C-alpha cells in the first residue's frame, strides 16, 4: 500500500519534471532566437571547409577520414558532411549552446591540438561564418540552396612583360538562380609550374621566370584556369619570320612569336628522309631509297616521299600495332578471359584491314563499341575481351579504360568523389558505367569461343553516395540516353559523332604526339581542365581538320608531316634550348622497341624470329602470345621488355617507354641482337667484295646504318682504323658494330 502510493507520487512528480525541466533548462534559451541571416550550410559553411582545406585529400577528405573525423573529399556529399559534423557525436564538434567551445572552431583556430595546425584567425571571415552558423543552432538547409553552376576568371591569358610583375585572379561563381558573386576569398589556387608563375591564397599571380604555364582557381566542384605567360627580355629578339607551309606552322609560329622563342632551322634532306621513314614505315630508309631521294632535285620531293610512305602497307601496319597496344591484344591458350590466340588473330587482322583500307577512325571505333557476337569470328567484339583481361566483364574498370582510350579522359577518380581537378562528377561516372553493366559473355559452340552480348535486364550502376540507380548517360550530359535496348548504340553514336570534340581532339592529339613526340596536351591520356593544351588554337585546328577530312588518318598525318614544324631540326638555338613543349625544335626520341629491332634486321639483313610468328615477320606485326592466361603484363619477346614496348597490362599511353636504360645499352653492346647479326648477314663480306676502296665501304656502312654520309673527320678516323689491311672483315665489322651502338642509330632526331 505504501509502495503503491509512493509509486504514484513518483509518477506525478516526474511528469511534472518534464515541464519543469524544459522551463529550467531553457531558461537560458531566450537569447537563442533564430536569426534571419543565419549562414546556409551548403552555400556558406561548405565553402569554408573547402577553403580552409579541411576536406582536402590529405586531411579529413581522405577516404577513411583523419583522426576519426571524415568529410567528403572537396565536399561532394554535403548531406553526409552535415550529419558527420553535427549529429555524429552530439555536442562535440558543434556545440550550439556554447558556440565558441565547438571543437570544429577550436581545432581550426589551433586552440587545441590539431594535426592540421591552425587554419585561420578568430577575426577572419571564415571563422565568423562558422561561428554565426553554430550560433544559429547549426541548422541544415531547410530548402534547396542555389547550386554553383560554374566559376570564371576575368582573363583567359595574362602576359607578364617582366619578372616580378603581378596581377590578381578574381574568381566569380555563377549560381543556379542566375546570381553570381565574388568568391576569391573562398577559392583555392594553384599553379602548374611555380617556377614560371606562382599564385598565392588571395589569387595574386607573380611572374617568376620566362615561360608559359597555367594558374588555376578551384571552388565548389569547378576548376578554372588562366594562362600565365612570362616573356623573356625584348632586347636581342627578332622574329625570323620563317615561311609557313600550312595552318599548323601558322599556329605554332604565332605562339612562338608571342613567347619570343625562335624556332630551329629546317632539317636537312638526310635527316628528313630518316625521320619520315622511321615515323611512317617504322624502319630506316634503304640504301636505294637514300640515293634516289638525295639525287632528286625537285622542290616537292619531301611531299612526294610522304605520299609514297603513306601509301605503303607498313604505315597501316604500324598504326594497327599502335591500336593493338591500346586495345591490349594478347593471345592466350584456352585463357579464362576469352582471349584465345584465335580471338587475338581475328581482332588484330580486323584492325589491320581497317587501317590498310583507310577506314575513317570514327567508324572504326564505332564498330568496336557497338559490337556483339563471337570473339572468334567477329574481330571488333574483342574490345570486350581484350581491353580488360578479366574473367567477367567488370563495368567500372571497363568504363575507365574506355574513356581513357577513346576520350583521353580519366574518369575513375569520380568513382569515389567528384573529380577534384576536372569537371567530372560522380553522376557522370556512374551514368557512364551503366553503358557497360549489361555486357556479358556466354559460352559458344567450342571451348575457346565466347559470345559477347548485352543483357538489358541488368540494373544500371548505383551511385556510391546514396545508392540511386544511374541509367546510362554520356559524359557531361544531364539526361540519360533512354530506350530499353542496348545503350551502346547510343554510346557509339555520341562518341564518334563529328560534333563530339572530346573524341576528335583526343584522336588528333594522339596522332600529333605519335609524330612530334609530345602531345599538344601531354600526357595524351590525361586530358583535364587542369592539364590544358600548350597551344589551344593548334589543337582546335587539328581536331577540326580531322573532322573535315572525315576522320581519315592518312590525311591528317600528311598535313602534319608536310608542315615546317614537323621538319624542323632537332638542333636547338640559344632562344629555344629551354623550350620542351612549344615544338620550337624536333623532339629527340629513342626508337620504339619494335621499330628498333626491325631497324637492326633491315640494316644487317638477318631476320629475327618471334615466338608464335613465322620467321620473317616484322616486329611491328607481332603481338604477345602466351601459353595460358592473358592477365598481367605480356611483352611477347624479351627484347620488347628490355626496350620498353607496351606490356599491354594497362591502357595507359605511358606503357610505351622510350627512356634509354643501362640494360638496353648492355644488350646492344654484348647481347645477341646485334653481335650475331654482324657476320651472319654477310653485309660486310659483300661490301668488301663489291666495293673498291675502304672509303666506299665506310661510306655505305654509314648510309646503311645512319642514313647519312660520314663527316670528313669521321671518314679520316675510320680510314686510320682500317689501316693497310683494307680487306680485313673484322675491322669493318667493328665499325659496323660501333655505328649500330651509336646513340644516333637508337634515336629518331
Amino acid at each position, binding site marked *: 500500500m505504501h509502495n503503491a502510493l509512493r509509486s504514484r507520487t513518483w509518477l506525478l512528480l*516526474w511528469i511534472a519534471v518534464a515541464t519543469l*525541466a524544459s522551463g529550467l533548462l531553457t531558461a537560458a534559451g531566450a537569447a537563442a532566437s533564430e536569426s534571419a541571416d543565419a549562414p546556409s550550410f551548403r552555400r556558406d559553411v561548405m565553402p569554408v571547409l573547402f577553403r580552409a582545406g579541411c576536406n582536402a585529400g590529405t586531411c579529413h577528405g581522405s577516404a577513411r577520414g583523419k583522426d576519426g573525423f571524415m568529410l567528403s573529399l572537396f565536399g561532394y556529399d554535403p548531406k553526409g558532411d552535415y550529419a558527420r559534423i553535427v549529429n555524429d557525436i552530439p555536442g562535440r564538434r558543434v556545440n550550439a549552446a556554447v558556440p565558441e567551445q565547438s571543437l570544429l572552431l577550436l581545432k581550426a583556430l589551433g586552440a587545441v591540438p590539431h594535426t592540421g595546425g591552425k587554419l585561420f584567425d578568430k577575426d577572419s571571415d571564415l571563422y565568423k561564418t562558422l561561428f554565426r552558423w553554430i*550560433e544559429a543552432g547549426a541548422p541544415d538547409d*531547410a530548402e534547396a540552396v542555389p547550386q554553383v553552376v560554374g566559376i570564371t576568371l576575368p582573363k583567359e591569358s595574362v602576359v607578364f612583360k617582366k619578372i616580378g610583375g603581378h596581377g590578381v585572379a578574381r574568381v566569380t561563381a555563377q549560381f543556379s538562380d542566375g546570381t553570381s558573386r565574388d568568391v576569391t576569398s573562398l577559392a583555392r589556387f594553384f599553379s602548374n609550374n611555380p617556377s614560371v608563375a606562382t599564385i598565392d591564397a588571395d589569387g595574386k599571380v607573380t611572374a617568376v621566370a620566362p615561360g608559359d604555364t597555367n594558374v588555376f582557381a578551384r571552388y565548389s566542384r569547378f576548376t578554372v584556369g588562366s594562362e600565365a605567360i612570362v616573356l623573356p627580355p625584348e632586347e636581342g629578339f627578332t622574329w625570323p619570320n620563317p615561311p609557313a607551309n600550312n595552318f599548323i606552322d601558322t599556329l605554332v609560329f604565332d605562339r612562338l612569336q608571342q613567347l619570343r622563342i625562335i624556332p630551329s632551322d629546317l632539317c636537312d634532306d638526310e635527316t628528313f628522309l630518316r625521320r619520315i621513314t622511321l615515323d611512317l614505315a617504322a624502319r630506316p630508309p634503304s640504301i636505294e631509297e637514300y640515293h634516289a631521294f638525295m639525287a632528286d632535285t625537285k622542290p616537292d620531293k619531301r611531299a612526294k616521299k610522304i605520299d609514297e610512305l603513306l601509301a605503303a602497307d607498313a604505315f597501316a601496319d604500324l598504326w594497327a600495332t599502335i591500336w593493338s597496344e591500346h586495345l591490349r591484344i594478347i593471345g592466350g591458350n584456352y585463357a579464362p578471359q576469352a582471349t584465345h590466340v584465335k580471338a587475338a588473330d581475328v581482332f588484330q587482322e580486323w584492325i589491320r584491314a581497317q587501317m590498310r583500307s583507310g577506314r575513317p577512325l570514327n567508324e572504326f571505333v564505332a564498330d568496336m563499341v557497338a559490337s556483339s557476337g563471337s570473339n572468334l569470328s567477329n574481330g571488333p567484339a574483342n574490345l570486350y575481351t581484350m581491353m580488360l583481361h578479366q574473367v567477367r566483364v567488370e563495368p567500372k574498370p571497363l568504363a575507365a579504360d574506355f574513356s581513357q582510350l577513346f576520350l583521353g579522359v580519366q574518369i575513375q577518380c569520380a568513382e569515389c568523389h567528384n573529380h577534384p581537378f576536372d569537371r567530372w562528377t560522380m553522376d557522370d561516372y556512374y551514368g557512364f558505367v551503366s553503358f557497360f553493366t549489361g555486357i556479358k559473355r556466354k559460352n559458344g559452340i567450342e571451348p575457346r569461343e565466347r559470345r559477347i552480348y548485352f543483357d538489358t535486364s541488368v540494373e544500371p550502376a548505383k551511385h556510391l553516395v546514396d545508392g540511386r540507380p544511374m541509367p546510362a548517360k554520356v559524359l557531361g550530359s544531364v539526361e540519360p540516353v533512354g530506350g530499353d535496348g542496348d545503350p551502346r548504340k547510343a554510346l557509339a553514336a555520341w562518341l564518334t559523332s563529328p560534333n563530339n570534340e572530346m573524341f576528335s581532339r583526343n584522336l588528333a592529339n594522339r596522332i600529333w604526339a605519335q609524330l612530334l613526340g609530345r602531345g599538344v596536351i601531354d600526357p595524351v591520356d590525361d586530358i583535364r581542365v587542369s592539364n590544358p593544351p600548350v597551344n589551344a588554337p593548334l589543337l582546335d585546328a587539328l581536331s577540326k581538320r580531322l573532322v573535315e577530312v572525315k576522320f581519315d588518318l592518312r590525311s591528317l598525318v600528311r598535313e602534319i608531316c608536310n608542315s615546317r614544324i614537323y621538319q624542323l631540326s632537332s638542333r636547338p638555338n640559344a632562344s629555344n634550348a629551354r623550350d620542351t613543349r612549344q615544338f620550337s625544335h624536333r623532339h629527340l626520341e629513342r626508337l620504339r622497341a619494335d621499330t628498333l629491332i626491325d631497324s637492326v634486321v633491315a640494316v644487317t639483313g638477318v631476320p629475327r624470329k618471334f615466338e608464335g610468328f613465322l620467321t620473317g615477320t616484322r616486329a611491328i606485326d607481332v603481338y604477345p602470345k602466351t601459353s595460358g592466361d592473358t592477365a598481367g603484363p605480356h611483352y611477347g619477346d624479351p627484347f620488347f621488355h628490355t626496350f620498353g614496348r607496351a606490356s599491354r597490362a594497362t591502357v595507359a599511353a605511358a606503357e610505351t617507354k622510350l627512356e634509354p636504360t643501362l640494360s638496353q645499352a648492355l644488350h646492344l653492346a654484348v647481347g645477341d641482337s646485334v653481335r650475331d647479326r654482324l657476320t651472319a648477314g654477310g653485309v660486310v663480306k659483300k661490301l668488301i667484295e663489291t666495293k673498291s676502296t675502304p672509303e666506299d665501304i665506310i661510306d655505305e656502312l654509314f648510309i646503311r646504318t645512319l642514313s647519312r654520309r660520314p663527316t670528313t673527320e669521321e671518314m679520316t678516323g675510320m680510314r686510320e682504323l682500317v689501316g693497310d689491311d683494307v680487306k680485313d672483315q673484322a675491322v669493318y665489322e667493328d665499325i659496323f658494330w660501333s655505328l649500330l651502338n651509336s646513340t644516333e642509330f637508337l634515336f629518331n632526331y
Partner: protein
Amino acid sequence: MQASLRFLIVASTFMACVAVPSMPAAADDPKPVTFDDNVAGILKKNCLQCHGEAKQEAGLNFATYASLVKGGSGGVVVVAGRSSASRLLEVITAEDPDARMPPDNDALPADQIAMIKTWIDTGIRENSGSSVAAARTLGFKPAAATQANDGPPPVPANLPDFKPRKTHRPYPVLALAASPRAPLAAVASYEAIELMASKDKSYGAIAFPEGEPLVLKFSPSGRVLLAAGGKPVQNGAAVLFDVTTGKRLSSVGDETDAVLAADISPDERQVAIGGSGKVVKIFSTEDGKLLHTLAKHTDWITALAFSPDGKLLATGDRIGNIHLWDAKSGGIVLPLSEHKGAIRTLSWRSDSGLVVSCGEDGLIVWWDVKDGWPAISKPNAHPPSRPAGSYGKIASGVLDAAFGPKGELATCGRDGIIRLWADDGKELKKFAIADDKPVDRAAPKGVTVLPTRVAISADGSVVLAGDSAGQLHAWPTGAAAPAK
C-alpha cells in the same frame, strides 16, 4: 494542490496520445525451415561439386546435415542462431566477387540466401522433426537488485549555492541518470549538473568546472553520483559527488580529451574511464591510484559499465568491439562481437546476468555473459523512416539504453523514438519526442532534435529522455508498481 491537478491532466494526456501500442510479436512459423526441406537442395545445386562426397575443398562436405554441421579444416561454418557468425553466410553474401562463393558465378538469388539465413537463425534444424537447442532462460528476479541499502533514499539537501552559467541556448542533454533509490535525476548541463526532482522541490545544480558532463551514473546505493566528461581535446576527468550534500568526494583521471565512458563500481571503490585514448583505465576511488590499464580496443572507448555484482566490466568502442573484463584483476574474459558500428551504451541488468549493448549500426543485443551468447538480438531496432524518392543508407543508430528495475529496457534512437522492451525482448511501448510539446521548444528550423539519453525511474513508473535541444521528456511507463 492546484499544480498537482494540472500535472495529472498533463499526464493523462500523455498517456492518451503518446503511448503507441507496440508492434505485435511475430507468431511462431508453423512450418520451420529445415535442412532436408529447404536448404539441401540449394547446396546440392550450387556447392556439392567442390564441397560434396566426391571432393571436399577446405575439408567441407555439404552432402549431409551431419557433415555440414561438423565443418571443415577452417572450423564450423554454421552457428545455430547466429547467421552473423556463420562463415557460410559470409561467403555467399560477399560483395567482392573474388571472395564470394560459388566462385566465378553470380551471387545466389536473394531468396535462397534469405532461406539459408533463416535456417541458421532459427536453429539449423535438420528436419521438421528435429528440435532446436533449448531456448535460453532469460528469466529475471529483481531480488538481485537489492543490496544492503539501508537508511532513507539519499536525496540532495543543502546543496551549495551555485548558479549554472547561462548558455547561448539550452544545453543538450548529453548525460542523464536516474537514482536507483529515489525520485531523483541528474541531468547534464554546461559545466554543471542539474539535480531534478519536482516543481515543489528543486534541488538545484552542482558545479562541474571540468566542462561538459558526458556520463552521469549513480552508485547502487544512490549516495554517490559519478560525473565524467571534460572539454573536447582539452581535458577530461571523472568526479564523484555526494548526492546529499553536492560535495566533491574525489576526482580521477587527468586526460587530454573529454572522458566519453565511465562507471563507478558497485562497492564505490573503483572508477573506470575511457575515451579517445583507446585504453580503459581503472582507478581506486580511495587514493586515486591507477589500478589497471586495459589496452585491447583499437578505437575510441565509447561505453563501459561495471556489472552490478562488481565482478565484470564491459567496455565498447567506436568500431563495434565489446570486451568483458574481470573487474578485479583487469584480465580479459570474453569478446562480444556482433556490432558493426560504434557502441553507444552498455547497460547491465541488475542481476548481472545480462548486459545490453546498442550502437550506431541500429542493433540492440542482450548478451548472456556466462558465455557471451547474444541471447536476443534486435537489428534495426529503431527503424528510420525513409523520405519518398530517397536512396541509400539512413542513420538508424541506437543512441542510449537503460534498464529499469524489473529487467525492462528503454532505448532511444536516431528515429526520434523512445522504445520500451520487455525482459524477453518484446517491444512494449514507444514514445516519440516530436509528439511531446514542452513549453519552449527552441529548435531552429533545419535542426534535427535527437533523443540523446534515456533513463527509467527507480520504481519503473516513468521513462525519462533528454534530447539534443536540451529538453527533458517524461512518460509514464504504465507499469504497475511491484507489490511487496
